[in-house]
C-alpha cells in the first residue's frame, strides 16, 4: 500500500468512526443479536469488526441507549439488543444533526 493509500485509509476510517454509533443505533430499531447486527451493517456497506462492535454495544447499553436480554434461539442462548426509549430519542436528534452536517458538506463539496 502506497503512502497516499495509507493516508486515505486512515482518513477514511476517521470519517467512518463518528458515523458508526449512529448506524448501530439505527440498526437496532429492530431487535438483533451481535452477529446478525454485524451482518445487517455489512449488508448496508458498513463493515465493522467484532472487537469494536461488541464493546460498543455494552457501552451504549451502560449509557441507557440500548436494552438487552439473553434469550434462547435455535437451541443457543443469544444476547439480543434493541433501542431503549432514551436511545430512540437520541437517535432522532443525532439523525437531524447528521442530515444538517450532510447538507452543509453537500453544499461545500
Amino acid at each position, binding site marked *: 500500500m502506497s503512502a497516499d493509500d495509507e493516508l486515505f485509509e486512515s482518513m477514511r476510517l476517521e470519517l467512518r468512526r463518528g458515523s458508526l454509533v449512529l448506524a448501530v443505533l439505527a440498526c437496532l430499531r429492530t431487535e438483533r*443479536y*451481535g*452477529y446478525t447486527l454485524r451482518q445487517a451493517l455489512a449488508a448496508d456497506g458498513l463493515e465493522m*469488526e*467484532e*472487537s*469494536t462492535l*461488541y*464493546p460498543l454495544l*455494552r457501552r451504549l447499553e451502560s449509557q441507557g441507549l440500548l436494552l438487552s436480554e*439473553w434469550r434462547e434461539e435455535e437451541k*443457543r*442462548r*443469544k*444476547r439480543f439488543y434493541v433501542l431503549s426509549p432514551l436511545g430512540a430519542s437520541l437517535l432522532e436528534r443525532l439523525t437531524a444533526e447528521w442530515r444538517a452536517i450532510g447538507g452543509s458538506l453537500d453544499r461545500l463539496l
Partner: protein
Amino acid sequence: MTTPSEDIIDRWLEAVAAQLPPETRADITDELRELIVSRMEAKEAELGRDLTADEVEGVLREIGHPLAVAARYRAGPDSLIGPELLPWWLYGVKAGLLVLLAIHALSLVVTLISGPRDPGQAISQAFHGFFGSGLTLIGALTLAGAIMEHYRIRPKWMTEWRAKDLSLFGLSDPTTWGVKAREASKTSTAGGVNIRPVQVRVGGSSPAGEAVFSILALGLFVLWWLGLVSFPGLATFEVADQPVTVAGAPVWTTLYAPILAFALVQMAVDLFTLINPTAERLRALFRAAVAAANLVLLWFIAQAGDLFVLTSAGQKATVAIDQAYLTLDWLRMLDERGRDLPGVASTLSIVLTWSAVVMAISLLGSAMLNLWRTVRPKVA
C-alpha cells in the same frame, strides 16, 4: 469430552476472561462464545463441512488477540497518558532531562577540573548517573500522568493558562534557543495586508514556565538534600590520582532545616504561581520575600566562610567563601592554580565566592523588582 475446536475456543476465552473484571467476565465471554460459534457455523455452511483446528484458529485471529479484545471492554482511559496530557508529559520529560543534564554536567566538570586518574571512567559514570536519574524521572512522570489520566485530574494551570505565560515552553526546542521577539518582529506587506511573521520569544518573563522549571529543579534538590538521590562526582572525586572525599562544613548542619524549609517554601510559591497565574501582585510579593530570605541565607553561609573540607591521603583543604578572593587578580590567576589538593580547593573557593556575589546581586535585583511589581500601577 471436548473436541479440539472447543478446546481452542476455551483457551482463547480463558485468556480474554483473565483480563476482564470478575463482575462482567462471564457475561462477556458468553457473548463472545456465541459470536465465535455463529461465525464458525457460517463458515461451515459455506464450506459444507466442519472446520479444522487451523480454520478455528483463523476465526479467532480475525476476532483479535485476547489482550486486544479484552482491552476494548475496559472502562476508563484507553491509554496510559492520553492525547490531552501527552504534551505536558513530554514537556516535563524534556525540561526535567535538561535540568538533570545540567546537574550531571556540572558534577562532571568538577570531577574533571580535579584531574581524575581515569577521565574516561569519570565521563562514563556521569553518563550512567544521567541515564539512571533520567529513567527514574521519566518513570515518575509517567506514573503521575497515568494517575491524572485515570482519575481525570486536570489542574487549573492546564486549563486556565495565559498566552503571556507560554514563552518558556519554547525551551523544549533547543533550535529556538536565543531567538528573541524583537529580532523577529519585522513586518512585511503583501497585497496591502500587513503580515507579521511568527514571533518566537524565548527567555523573556514567563511566570508559569519559570515555575515549572523551578519546581523540577527544587524537587531534585530536595530529594538530594534528604539523601533520597545522589549525584556521583559531588561527594567524591580524584585529585592527582588520589580519591578525595568531600565533607560539608558545620554550617550545612546548622542550616540543614532552614535550607530544606526554604526550598519547600519556594516550591509552594512556584505552585501558587501555577495555580493562580493572574495573582500578579501577590506572586511578586511572595517572590520578593523569597529573594530576601535567600539573601539572608546566603549572608549566613558567607559569614560561616568554610563550606567544604576536602580530604585526600591524609591531607585536608578547605573550600570557603572569602572576601579576600574578590579581586580581579584572583580571577586572572584562576587557571594557574595547582592541580594538587590545596590548588583545587582554592580554585573552588574563588569560583564559589564570585558565584555568591553574582547570586547576591541577582537576589537583590529580584527582591527590588518584585517589590516594585507589588506597588506599580496596573497597565490598562
